[in-house]
């Protein structure tokens, strides 16, 4: 029971990341009709926003170490600590939450820039060409990151206050031995908040209503005198923000490296396909579902029955879904069925 509970949490956690990336992919596909292979790279750029923030906050000066008396020793101390003392180190400690705030405008800008300078010229071209050009863009983005930050993963830590584990078992009446890292709980909560944020934006605001109308019938919306293209650009920026935030929040869980985006991209594409191309709810549901499936299949009990299942379960599910129900779990009838 304990193990199952933990695996569900694990799965929801992983699924949160998948769902956030898949949500952006689906949004872009549903509005602009573009298959964006660079979306994983955007996730990665988000993660490196946090890395950059950390680098900026810890710009250091060499200060004489007073504790060493018999020779001159110097140690690196961040300026923030020199200027603000305890407050300064607290700021450095909270680098991930700070980067979240910073990354929103950055990612929005990046997304809009991408859409205006490149993606919009590919609306009318074939999906294959869209895949190819965004694949090239993904290579460029990740190589740029590699040039600036090197090829090794860069660890970023969560604020100290949430560094430990939560005794989650005792909250819900399971044994006290069931503990779960705080940050992962926060990540889960965060992904739920972001997802519901996106959904309420689309469902409860006039702006979102127009966007949905545009997804359903672009031409009619344009005939009504609405500049739908501008709104779709904003939606692309929004998708970039969602992916970027997912990346920022993921840094304490997995130290980011330059090809992290590619790894997530393949999985989140599978998620989109399973959920149904163009279905937002499908993408989210499939994200969590596949996350849970994956974490269950990596239990040793399961692995001893079918070895290696944890490595392929997601792809296997995708293959089965595509062959039996091509429009995906929640895809609309007739949308991209063949």
């Amino acid at each position, binding site marked *: 029971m304990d193990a199952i509970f933990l695996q569900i949490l694990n799965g929801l956690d992983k699924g949160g990341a998948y769902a956030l990336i898949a949500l952006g992919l689906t949004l872009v596909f549903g509005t602009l009709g573009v*298959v964006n292979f660079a979306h994983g790279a955007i996730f990665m750029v988000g993660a490196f926003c946090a890395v950059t923030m950390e680098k900026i906050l810890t710009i250091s000066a060499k200060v004489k170490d007073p504790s060493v008396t018999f020779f001159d020793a110097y140690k690196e101390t961040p300026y923030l600590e020199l200027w603000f003392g305890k407050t300064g180190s607290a700021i450095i400690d909270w680098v991930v939450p700070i980067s979240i705030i910073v990354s929103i405008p950055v990612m929005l800008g990046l997304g809009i820039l991408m859409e205006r300078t*490149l993606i919009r*010229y590919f609306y009318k*071209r074939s*999906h*294959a*060409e869209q*895949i*190819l*050009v965004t*694949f*090239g*863009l993904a*290579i*460029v983005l990740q*190589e*740029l990151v*590699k*040039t600036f930050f090197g090829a090794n993963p860069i660890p970023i830590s969560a604020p100290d206050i949430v560094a430990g584990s939560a005794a989650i078992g005792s909250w819900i009446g399971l044994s006290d031995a069931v503990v779960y890292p705080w940050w992962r709980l926060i990540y889960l909560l965060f992904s739920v908040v972001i997802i519901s944020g996106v959904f309420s934006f689309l469902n409860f605001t006039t702006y979102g209503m127009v966007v949905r109308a545009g997804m359903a019938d672009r031409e009619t919306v344009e005939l009504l005198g609405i500049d739908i293209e501008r709104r779709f650009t904003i939606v692309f920026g929004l998708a970039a923000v969602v992916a970027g935030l997912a990346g920022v929040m993921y840094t304490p869980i997995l130290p980011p490296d330059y090809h992290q985006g*590619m790894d997530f991209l*393949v999985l989140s*594409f*599978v998620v989109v*396909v399973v959920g149904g191309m163009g279905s937002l709810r499908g993408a989210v549901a499939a994200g969590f579902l596949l996350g849970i499936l994956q974490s269950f299949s990596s239990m040793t009990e399961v692995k001893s029955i079918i*070895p*290696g299942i944890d*490595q*392929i379960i997601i*792809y*296997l599910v*995708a*293959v089965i879904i*595509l*062959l039996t129900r*091509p429009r995906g779990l929640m895809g609309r009838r007739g949308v*991209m069925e*063949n």
Partner: protein
Amino acid sequence: MSNTQIATPRQELLYMVVLSAVVLTMPLWLQPFGAAYPDLMQKFMIFGIFAIGYNILFGLTGYLSFGHAAFLGVGSYTAVWSFKLLSMNVVPAIIFATLLAGLFAWLIGFVSLRRSGIYFSILTLAFAQMSYNLAYSVLTPITNGETGLQLNQADPRVIDRMAGIEATSGLPNTNLFGLEGTGYTGFYICAIILIVAFFISMRIFHSPFGMKLRAIKSNQTRMSYTGYNTRPYLLTAFIISGMYAGLAGSLLAMTDPLAGAERMQWTASGEVVLMTIFGGAGTLIGPLLGTGIIKYLENIFSAFNDSVLHNMFSFLPDWLNDILTAIISPFVGEGWQLLLGIVFMLIVIFLPGGLMEGYGKISRMIRDRRQKPADDGSSDTQHSTGEV
């Protein structure tokens, strides 16, 4: 569209003669480019075969597969196993690798080809990723996981032992009935296989079968209405291109008997897509051209570093030298992939037909300019009608 569709036997012969001459004299004419060493030329040949095969699928039918590296990997593993178990002779290795890759392609193609468009791409991607993950984890007894599959002096090599060939000291070399599979002889083996592979691909391009594949690309629904069941044709094309990939994989194992799972990763599939598109998908020569140029540039640019750049610009004033070096250095050496990505994007944006399309455009432009003085004025209208 292109004149490759109708070709007389004489034209084909001409193609073959020219190509063979160009390929076989490579060690001579690559000398001034500094690329005439066997390792690099083998790479040209092997990836050329890979790209030719990929082109049969993508170039003719337009089905964008992101999983062909899996077949390359299967070919490599099979070849190394054949070296280990049977013989260091490359003939059984090549045959088994090609057949097994074909079988693999049949399985994957049978499932993936039920869908088209981006679903097909994602399905092939999923299968390739599955094979990659399995090769790293559960299949370690077969693939030797992260270390990669290597030869061992104590391997059985049944046929070799029967023939009385024992490994003397160190690891045995791959061979083709005594010809070594590495160095210049290795290059010539690859070159001859490439010529044969190109011939087969050319025959496919000009055959009724190739015509049907093209018809599938231009309009699959119309094909079905005409009464063709398109799937068998697609599956055949998929299997053929998978076998080409397996062949290339086995040749990779011949020149360097070591097979690793990273050859199966989807970025490796991306590489062959890149090479094919770069040269021109759907043309005969394009993929070879793309492979040659990309592999050559990779070799040149990844060897650059700051000091080489400094030397190159040493004729300039110091400050300009420093600036230029600073600008260029992110794009060479380790950053060569960045340059490749940018060039690839430019190609897809401005020249979706690859270098071959660029060549066609330029030659048309030159022809236009030549004609203009001859019949000035009227040629414009002629051409605008001719284009349509």
